[in-house]
């Protein structure tokens, strides 16, 4: 295990911006006094004139980005998910979403893997908040390769995009030579017949590992990476659920409003099937090392394996 390369997707965000900046002169990165943590500092080093620190004022940053985009710029605003999606929610909704402006929101430090900072900084509601906004694309990449591809796809997409990144280093799983990223297209990582696991973000690699354990017990799990929460790959979700007839969703987010809810919304209309939603139950997080928290909340491979075993009886 120790040989697997791990990178936090916040690093991917900073690196992808710096790479994009070389060929995209209209790209402007805004931050709110977190350039070191969000990794936009990497972009700042390469393009200081296009990195604008707004200070600790996320609402204003969202508005500035809205104005910039009306003048032909492609702004990426950066902060922790708590402040990008939470603090500035109404600015994102009314100043960016309602006029459908070409603003990208790079939200790092999502979920409980923020770790020691605890509940005030562990955003477990951002997917729910962002996917409710009409026209907003919501992407939660699973590793470094996917995160970098997502940043580029977000730049190319015309309209608002919410990108969710993490603080914890996670294994690289999308290193197959034929890997390609397309907004709104889920990826079948492992085929199976007994149960479908729809996972997103850092839970994709944990779910793959859980599926390998299930295999040893004779349970054939299909694992599908849903990197785009919105627009959801409804066809793929319905088709796999119709095949396996049993569905599990896994996300580092509240079980209310995120991937689990999105999958249920599709299935109840298109392919009714029982769904086990694995995520953070209706509660706040807490302080602790990220890996320990994932274990405590049953969101590591072991916890996912146990929950699915119990669910399948």
């Amino acid at each position, binding site marked *: 295990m120790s040989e697997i390369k791990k990178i936090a997707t916040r690093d991917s965000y900073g690196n992808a911006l710096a790479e994009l900046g070389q060929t995209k002169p209209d790209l402007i990165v805004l931050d709110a006094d977190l350039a070191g943590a969000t990794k936009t500092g990497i972009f700042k080093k390469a393009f200081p004139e296009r990195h604008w620190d707004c200070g600790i*004022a996320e609402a*204003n940053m969202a508005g500035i980005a809205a*104005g910039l985009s009306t003048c*032909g710029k492609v702004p990426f605003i950066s902060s922790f998910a708590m402040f990008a999606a939470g603090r500035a929610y*109404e600015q994102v909704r009314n100043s960016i979403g309602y006029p459908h402006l070409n603003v990208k929101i790079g939200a790092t430090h999502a979920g409980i893997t923020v770790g020691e900072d605890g509940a005030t900084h562990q955003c477990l509601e951002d997917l729910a908040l962002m996917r409710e906004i009409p026209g907003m694309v919501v992407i939660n990449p699973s590793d470094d390769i996917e995160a970098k591809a997502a940043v580029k796809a977000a730049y190319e997409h015309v309209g608002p995009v919410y990108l969710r990144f993490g603080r914890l280093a996670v294994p690289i799983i999308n290193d197959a030579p034929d890997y390609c990223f397309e907004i709104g297209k889920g990826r079948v990582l492992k085929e199976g017949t007994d149960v479908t696991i729809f996972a997103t973000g850092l839970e994709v690699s944990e779910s793959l590992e859980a599926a390998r354990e299930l295999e040893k017990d004779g349970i054939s799990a299909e694992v599908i990476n849903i990197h785009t929460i919105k627009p959801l790959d409804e066809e793929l979700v319905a088709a796999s659920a119709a095949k396996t007839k049993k569905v599990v969703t896994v996300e580092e987010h509240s079980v209310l409003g995120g991937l689990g809810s999105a999958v249920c919304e599709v299935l109840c209309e298109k392919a009714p099937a029982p769904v086990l939603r694995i995520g953070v139950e209706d509660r706040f997080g807490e302080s602790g090392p990220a890996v320990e928290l994932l274990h405590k909340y049953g969101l590591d491979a072991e916890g996912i394996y146990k929950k699915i075993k119990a669910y399948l009886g």
Partner: protein
Amino acid sequence: MNNLELEKTANEIRKSIVSAVHSAKSGHPGGSLSAAELFTYLYFEEMNIDPKNPKWEDRDRFVLSKGHVAPGLYAALAERGYFPKEDLLTLRHTGSYLQGHPDMKHIPGVDMSSGSLGQGVSAAVGMAAAGKFDKKDYRVYTMTGDGEIQEGQIWEAAMWAGFRKLDNLVVIVDNNNLQIDGTVEEVCSPYPIDQKFEAFHFHTITINGNDFDEIRAAFQEARKTKGKPTAIIARTMKGKGVSFMENIADWHGKAPDDAQYQQAMEELQKAGEALCQR
């Protein structure tokens, strides 16, 4: 335009405001009327714009942060030729492009969607920063209410605009002294407004915002001000031009009934005729 022509235009805009709000049976006449001279001066004298090409990239921009006075903005845009004046009577009607608050996606000449108070100044700051970055000459104007500046985001925007020395930005505060719940002093006093903006490194000018001589002088002074943004504190009268609406907080957000509409239009008609006699 000379002052007389500007006054005639402002009077026409007032008629349009009253007609649109009456047709909508809802809306915000008080703050629209208080800012009629400001809208008139911006769209007929100050801004470098082309109604035939509303998205012209070198145009001056205007963001109505106090988006609820959309009737005032729409009346000015229609008067300037961005869309037909008769469309104003569809304000707030189902299916009309003239939404209750400014909608940049569907209304020619609207540079930013707005209406949720406190947000428009930030967008204007972004436009001004883009202009500086691109070394363009366009200027950016935004109007807030004196109640609206109770929103904290206004001061986040002011801090950054002053810090970045955005001298292509003018923030106009429509200081009509009234908000929904009463006078701004009674609700949560924003005074002294000028000193607050000065603390954020703005040049400030306080004027009578219903007087074209003072408006003209203020915008000229703003243009000459280098190295800092300008805030124009425009002291105005809410409901100005319609006797029974003047200085009454209750006319912040309600429409005149048919009899009140008749009276208002008669008053504005007389005011227009008086201007023609001059």
